[in-house]
């Protein structure tokens, strides 16, 4: 498969229902009972970040805010905690998107790493300021794993757009 950063490949336009479907799936993944594993990545954040980089005109910051509130309630966290982190990442991803798309996937992941770390740090800082105890450095493994997953998730979410415009019956793919 050819890298999307190369200009020779023109992708199909994204279908809006696919954006909604992928975010819904990420929400379900985030709601799995994974309390014992603090290193699980934040799937919603990763998917949101991807769509903000690729389609920042279609996916606005309001999506990040709404999904953040849903995650706050689902996690039993303080209201506004995830919302703030997601909105900050949405802004950062939109700002970085013109630059990021010139790079192959692994340098793109390096751009994503500070965003993921920022999201985690903002949440921890907010809660510690509100009187919580620092839950341990293991919380910072999850942004690293999110960064490693950037490549596979990007390829997966771009798959529908890789389809050729005209179906050729004799071509296998």
């Amino acid at each position, binding site marked *: 498969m050819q890298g999307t950063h190369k200009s020779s490949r023109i992708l199909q336009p994204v279908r809006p229902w696919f954006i909604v479907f992928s975010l819904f799936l990420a929400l*379900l993944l985030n709601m799995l009972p994974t309390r014992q594993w603090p290193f699980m990545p934040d799937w919603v954040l990763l998917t949101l970040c991807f769509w903000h980089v690729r389609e920042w005109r279609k996916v606005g910051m309001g999506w990040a805010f709404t999904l953040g509130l849903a995650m706050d309630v689902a996690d*039993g966290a303080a209201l506004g905690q995830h919302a*703030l982190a997601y909105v900050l990442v949405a802004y950062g991803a939109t700002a970085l998107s013109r630059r990021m798309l010139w790079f192959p996937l692994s340098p793109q992941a390096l751009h994503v790493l500070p965003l993921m770390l920022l999201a985690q740090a903002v949440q921890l800082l907010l*809660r510690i300021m509100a009187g919580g105890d620092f839950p341990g450095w293991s919380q910072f493994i999850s942004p690293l794993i999110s960064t490693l997953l950037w490549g596979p998730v990007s390829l997966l979410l771009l798959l529908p757009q890789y389809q050729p415009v005209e179906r050729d019956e004799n071509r296998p793919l």
Partner: protein
Amino acid sequence: MAALDHAPPPFFKRGPAPLALLSFYVACSIALFVLDLRFHALDAARQGISLVTDPLQRLAQAPMRMLTEGSEYFVALETLEAENRALQAARLEAAPALLRLAQLEAENERLRQLLNLQTREKAAGQAARILYTARDPFSRRVYLDKGQQQNLVPGQPVIDEKGIIGQITRVFPFSAEVTLITDKQQAVPVQILRTGQRSVVFGLGNGQVELKYIPANADVQVGDTLVTSGLDGIYLPGFPVAQVAHVERDSAYAFARIVATPTAAVESHGVVMVLDPRPPHPPHPEPLPDKPRAKGRPAAAPQGN
């Protein structure tokens, strides 16, 4: 040249600038955060959002639940028979105590009436199932599958077959949030069963609880059972809470450092019992009008020497 004063109309309408949007949403989030944590004013909003997230959460956990329940269904006949035998033996062992319990309770009530003591409150409640554990790393909470529809209210104690698990802190339409006794913000007034000394246990956040404000020279031993003292008006007295696991006496501090392990299976999933809320305490008696002071004399100390 009035035309120069006007900016040309934009070619593409794209809404507010990103930075303006960002500041708006950041301000909203921080306002929500403060309102929620400082003033606890957003429980209605939380209940509203939970109407959407609750079904999703149940949907996400359904495969896992089906797997565990499916494996329970295909459990071997031998295992079930062994479990059945063990349960019957346990029931037989408990029978001498249990059979006389009703008679003892009645007798206790009669004696209390004779002595003009307040009658003991009876424990009643409804069974519920733990749905899932909250993912928030700062707290220790679980969610039950019953909520406002089953008339749960915040403050109801939750127990399992071995002791206290926690207390309902938030109620949603179809689920309820239980803060475990191991949560950092949870405190339970207890009594040491052996000596009768009262104190309070606080959650440590790591699966254990700490018995605080016990003098360093107090009679506390490893293995002592802590039961609820019932002084808070929430937990009924006499339920086991924890067992002392570690006592550290340091003469530099006035209080001993005592760590205890909860007797109930606090951090594992299962079926629990939600006890009915206790009737509210009678109000404190009004202080009597201070007659000596009315006459211009200083109030007498309560205990004369």
